[in-house]
């Protein structure tokens, strides 16, 4: 019996070692996941000083007090404040707003021109009503409330503390001067009102959360607007496995070889085989968005724009399916390599975790994934309220991906 067990064990190992698909699934896939996920989330875990959140601040014309607040924020754990460009020129309010709109940053702070002057106005310091000074906290609408709220609170806390200390000291100094205290009394009085927390006065600064320019949507989309695009994009690429199964079945039956005997070009065959899957893929997205709309009342904002993005995405997904099918040798390889590629690209592209929380060096890598362009376009429509013109660039990139994938498919197409 031992001989039999030995023979069967050796045979199974030999068969397994020849099955590249299984080897890939069991060894390469988990390793790839561990490495890529760890890299992508390295900024989320570990001490905050290792991966501070970058916040551009405009202190243009805002004066010394704004610069002082920016410096305090910069020295705080977890923040990396930038307020000058490479040449040392201060950022303007427009520049930081555009940077958020472009997706370079999730947040920005704009101190209004004359900020220091307004707050150190003697009338205000002596309790006169001079209205509020507004500091803008510009937020990318795609950023989640869970991320935005603590950061806004922290920023508000620093501003409040700094101004409170300043006002206590500065207001007392103004009073001392009016009272014309003798020097020795003045020294004692100054020592008595050393900076401390602001107490019973009305805080003169308002922190207002605003959208970046050209974004008309309300801040903070609901969870469906966040999740539906992400998972729709990810799962649409699973068409890869469906295409592979279809083509390999056709090959193994000999039907594709027979098709080769007909006067039909390879281009026609690839396009003919891609179109139905394109339609199925398109329908898949339509159903997902329809369910989200009807079942969960998700605001689709601009349906024509969503359809345009979906068309580009479907072309990229079916093109990728066709390409992988024609690059691998077996259906098992298409399954394992295809799924691995889909999951890695989905992760890099932001379907699983937002690209914005990945390390800065990793964020541009995500642009390799067609998923990232699709996701950006969907969020542009659903979260930022863009129309067709606003998502044209991303859609064209998706179409280009689809065209390249299909070209490779045609070049590598095999009948047997």
């Amino acid at each position: 019996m031992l001989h039999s067990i030995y023979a069967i064990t050796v045979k199974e190992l030999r068969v397994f070692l020849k099955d590249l698909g299984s080897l890939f699934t069991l060894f390469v896939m988990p390793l790839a996941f561990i490495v890529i996920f760890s890299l992508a989330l390295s900024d989320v875990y570990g001490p905050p000083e290792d991966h501070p959140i970058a916040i551009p601040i405009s202190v243009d014309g805002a004066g010394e007090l704004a610069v002082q607040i920016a410096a305090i924020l910069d020295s705080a754990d977890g923040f990396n404040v930038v307020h000058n460009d490479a040449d040392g020129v201060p950022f303007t309010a427009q520049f930081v707003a555009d940077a958020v709109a472009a997706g370079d940053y999730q947040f920005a702070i704009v101190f209004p021109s004359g900020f220091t002057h307004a707050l150190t106005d003697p009338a205000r310091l002596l309790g006169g009503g001079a209205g509020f000074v507004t500091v803008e906290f510009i937020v990318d609408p795609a950023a989640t409330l869970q991320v935005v709220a603590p950061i806004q609170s922290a920023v508000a806390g620093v501003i409040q503390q700094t101004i409170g200390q300043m006002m206590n000291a500065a207001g007392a100094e103004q009073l001392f001067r009016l009272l014309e205290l003798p020097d020795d009394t003045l020294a004692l009085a100054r020592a008595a009102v050393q900076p401390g927390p602001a107490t019973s006065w009305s805080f003169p600064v308002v922190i207002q959360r605003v959208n970046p320019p050209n974004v008309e949507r309300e801040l903070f989309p609901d969870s469906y607007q966040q999740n539906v695009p992400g998972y729709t994009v990810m799962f649409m690429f699973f068409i890869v496995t469906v295409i592979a199964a279809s083509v390999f079945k056709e090959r193994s039956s000999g039907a594709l070889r027979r098709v080769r005997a007909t006067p039909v070009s390879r281009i026609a065959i690839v396009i003919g085989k891609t179109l139905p899957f394109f339609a199925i893929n398109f329908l898949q997205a339509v159903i997902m968005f329809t369910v989200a709309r009807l079942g969960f009342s998700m605001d689709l904002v601009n349906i024509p724009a969503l359809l345009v993005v979906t068309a580009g995405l479907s072309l990229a997904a079916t093109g990728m399916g066709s390409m992988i099918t024609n690059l691998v040798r077996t259906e098992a390889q298409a399954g394992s390599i295809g799924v691995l590629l889909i999951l890695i690209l989905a992760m890099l592209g932001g379907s699983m975790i937002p690209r914005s929380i990945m390390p800065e060096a990793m964020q541009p890598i995500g642009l390799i994934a067609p998923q990232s362009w699709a996701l950006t376009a969907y969020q542009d429509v659903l979260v930022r309220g863009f129309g067709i013109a606003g998502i044209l660039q991303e859609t064209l990139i998706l179409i280009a991906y689809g065209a390249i994938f299909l070209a490779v498919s045609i070049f590598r197409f095999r009948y047997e």
Partner: protein
Amino acid sequence: MNTNGDSVATVEGLVHRYGDLTAVDELSFSINRGEVFGLLGPNGAGKSTTISILSCILEHTGGRVTVLGADAGPNARSVKARVGLVPQEIALYEDLSGLDNLKFFGRLYGLFGTRLGQAIESALETVGLADRAADAVSEYSGGMKRRLNLAAGLLHDPEILILDEPTVGVDPQSRNHIFDNVERLNAAGMTVIYTTHYMEEAERLCDRVAIIDHGRLVALDTPRNLIDSLGGGVIQIGISPDKRTSAEAELLSLDRITSAKPGPGGTLDLQTTGAQHALVDVLNALNAHNIPVESLRILEPNLESVFLRFTGRTLRD
């Protein structure tokens, strides 16, 4: 046979290699319009490779092949439009109905609308499946699938019909049905290229037969001439080389032996007027001269024997 003498396909010095394996090796023949041309040989002889090249689905690695006046190759679409291929495997979509399969392949040949409908009707009538056309192919018997496989190759009324082992694994009734179809189509003027390793099929259907072994042409003639070349049969006898000359002289003196020549594997091939009767005379003569017999085989006059005579192997080896 309905040949009018002109050639529809010419193969000159055809070579095809799969890596280091030479599947077809310097093969040359031509096929006349209107004939049923048989490619006979055992499995792995190079028949399917040859017809894949003739049907323009495989690019050959050497030699020249012309079909219907044009060079054969995967890009020869004008040739493909005039050639029908019935592959060895059931190259159909099992989940679709017979009708849907025929619609699909008909459209690939540029048939639409009424022309497609008529072509399907005619093809189904030919193979006797008109009443089962709406059923899924997965519900067909093996023989019915073979017949539908044939129908799919007939839709565009090809000038040349290529059948690759069309009767493998079918019941006798479906086999006869396929034979009848081939004969009827050929009688209507269609040139047929037919590969098989069943000698009786080649004998029944083919006007000429090319016998292929290890990718090489072994013999090419009408089945009758090939069989007649065996006369009343051949005795293939193994004799040690040192006694072969004296044995040959003795055996040629026998009345029932008409000729003697070297055969495969160092044997001596004795052409007889009747193999069974001649065998007794041969053994007596060799015994009388103390010449030991190392091997002995009688080749009855049929294509199987023709193949055996030329290759030393049976078609099913």
